[in-house]
C-alpha cells in the first residue's frame, strides 16, 4: 500500500534472514570442519544399547491411528466448549440451544463411530 507500512516489517525480515543465515552457517561449518567416519555400526538404529532385532520400521496397527484420530477430533471439539463457557451469560438461551445442537452433532458422530465398530480393538 505504502512504503512506511511495509517498512514496519523490516525488522521481521532482518530476523528471518539472521536465523536462516545462522542455521546455514552452522550446517555448512559442521560439514566442512567435522570429521566423517563411515562405520557400519553408526548407521544402525539405536535401541538403548541392545543389539537390534528385526526391522526397525515395524508398521503400527492401523487401529492405533484410528483411535488417535478420534481422540484428537473429539478433544478439539470439546475445547470449543471453553470459549462458550466464558460468554455463557451473555449468550443466554441462544448460546445454550446452539451448544445443544453442537453436542447433538457430536453425538451423531459418536453413534456412527460406535456402530461402525471403530472403537473395537480387534
Amino acid at each position, binding site marked *: *500500500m505504502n512504503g512506511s*507500512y511495509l517498512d514496519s516489517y523490516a525488522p521481521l525480515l532482518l530476523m528471518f534472514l539472521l536465523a536462516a543465515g545462522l542455521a546455514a552457517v552452522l550446517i555448512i561449518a559442521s560439514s566442512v570442519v567435522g570429521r566423517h567416519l563411515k562405520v557400519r555400526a553408526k548407521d544402525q538404529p539405536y535401541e538403548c544399547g541392545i543389539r537390534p532385532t528385526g526391522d526397525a520400521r515395524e508398521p503400527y496397527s492401523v487401529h492405533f491411528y484410528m483411535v488417535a484420530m478420534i481422540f484428537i477430533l473429539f478433544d478439539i471439539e470439546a475445547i470449543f466448549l471453553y470459549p462458550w463457557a466464558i460468554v455463557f451469560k451473555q449468550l443466554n438461551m441462544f448460546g445454550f440451544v446452539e451448544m445443544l445442537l453442537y453436542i447433538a452433532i457430536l453425538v451423531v458422530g459418536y*453413534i456412527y463411530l460406535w456402530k461402525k465398530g471403530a472403537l473395537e480393538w480387534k
Partner: protein
Amino acid sequence: MFPPLQDLYRIAPELVLCAFGMLVMLIDPFVPATRKRSMGWLAFAGTLVALASLRWAALNQGSAYSGLFRVDMFSLFVHAIVIGVSALAILGSFDYLDRENIQRGEYYALILFATAGMGILAGSTELITAFVGLEMSSISTYILVGFRRTVLKSNESSLKYFLLGSFATAFFLYGIALTYGATRSTRFDVVNQAIAAHGAGPLLILGLGLIFVGLGFKVVAAPFQIYTPDVYEGAPTPVTAILACGPKAAAFAVMLRIFYSAFGSASHVWFWAIWVSAILTMCIGNFAALVQTNVKRLLAYSSIAHAGYILVAFAAASEIGVAAVLFYLAAYAAMTLGAFLIVAHVGGTNEQRLNIEDYAGLGTKHPWIAACFALFLFSLLGLPATGGFLGKLYAFQSALDQRIVWLVVIAAVNSVIGAYYYLKVVVAMYFHESNKEWAPMPMRAPMFVVLLLTAIATIYFGVLPNRLMELAIASARSLR
C-alpha cells in the same frame, strides 16, 4: 447481537443438505449391507428438499450473518446448478456403486456435505466463509475420489488430490491473510471500498494473486490444472462427473464475487493474468486431449479446455460476461454430467471399457446410449442447437463486446482443434466395427432418468436459451 431468524432461512439449503447428510450417517450403521441403496434415495430426497428450500431462500434475499453470506439471484443460480448436479449424480451412482461393490451410505453423505460446502462457497461474501465452504467441499471430495478403496489408482488419485489440494488451499489462506493485512477486513464490500479509497497496493495484489492460486486450482485454470487428468481418471466416474461440474461452478462463482465485486476496480491488474491463464488452459486442455486414447482422461482434458472458454467470458468482466459464465456453467454441467455418467455406464465392472476402441460399435449395439453420448460430445464440441454452442457464443460475444479480440480468436481456433478429438469418439461409435463382445448393459430407471434429463437440458439450452440467459443476466445484475 444475535443473528435474526431470517438468516437461518437464507442458509436453508445448506442446513437441509447437512441435516440429510447427518441423517444418512446416523441411519447407515443400522441398515444391512444389502439395502444400502436406500441411503442413496434418502440423500436424493435431501437434494430435492434442498432444491425446494431454494425457493424459501429466494423469498428471503439479502445479506446474512453480518455480511458473511448473501442470498441473491447469483447465489441462487449457482446453488441450483450444484445441487442439481449432485442430485443427478446420486441417481447416476446407484448402479455404478453396485457394480464396484462399494455401495455405502457414507458415499451419499459425503456428496451432501460437499454440496453444502459448494453452496456456502457460492453464497459467501467474505473470505473466511469462502474458505470454510472451500474446505468443506474439498475434504469431502478428497475422500470421494478415493472411494474405491481396493483400487490402487483410486487411492493414488485421492492422495494426490489431497496433498495438492491442501497445498493450494494454503496459498488461498495466505492470500486471505494478506488481504486482511492490507484492508483490515475480509468482507468483499469492505475490500472493494478500501480499493476505491486507497487503490490496490502491492500487499493487496499479492493477496489477490495467492487467492487466484487457490481458486485456480479448483476451477482447473492453468497453470494449476496439473492434477486434473490423474485425479479425474482415478476417481470413481460418477465422482469425476461431480468434480467436473459442481466444485468448478462453485469456485467460479466465488471467484466472480472476489474478482468482479471485491477487486472489480483493480481489474486492470488481474485482466492480463486471466487472459494468459485462459489461453494456457484452453491450449493445454485441447492439445493434450488430442493424443488421449482413454475416454475418461480425454474428457478430463476437455474439462480443462472448457475452463479456459469460461475464463474467456470471465476476462470480459462485464455484466454480460458474468451472465455468459453462468450460462456456460449451467450448459456445461448438463452435458459434462451426462457424458461422464455414460462413461461410467459403458465402463462396466472395474471400469474396464474406457478406451476409444472400446466404444466401437456402440452406435449399432446400444443406439440410444450412443445417441445420447453423441449429443453430449456434439454439445461439448459446440455444434449449433446444443447448449455448448450457445455457451461458447455468449462467452465469445461478451469478450468481443469488451474488444478482447485476440483471446476470442485463439479460443475459436481452440474449439476447432477440440472438434477433432470429440469427433474421434463419435466416429469410433458409429463407423468402427466392434472387435469385442458387448455384454448386456441393463439401463435401470434412475440412470435412464438422469440421461434423459441431461439430454433434454442440453437441447433445451441450445434451442431455447433465452429463459436461462435471462436468469443469468438477472443473476449477473444482482452481483454488483
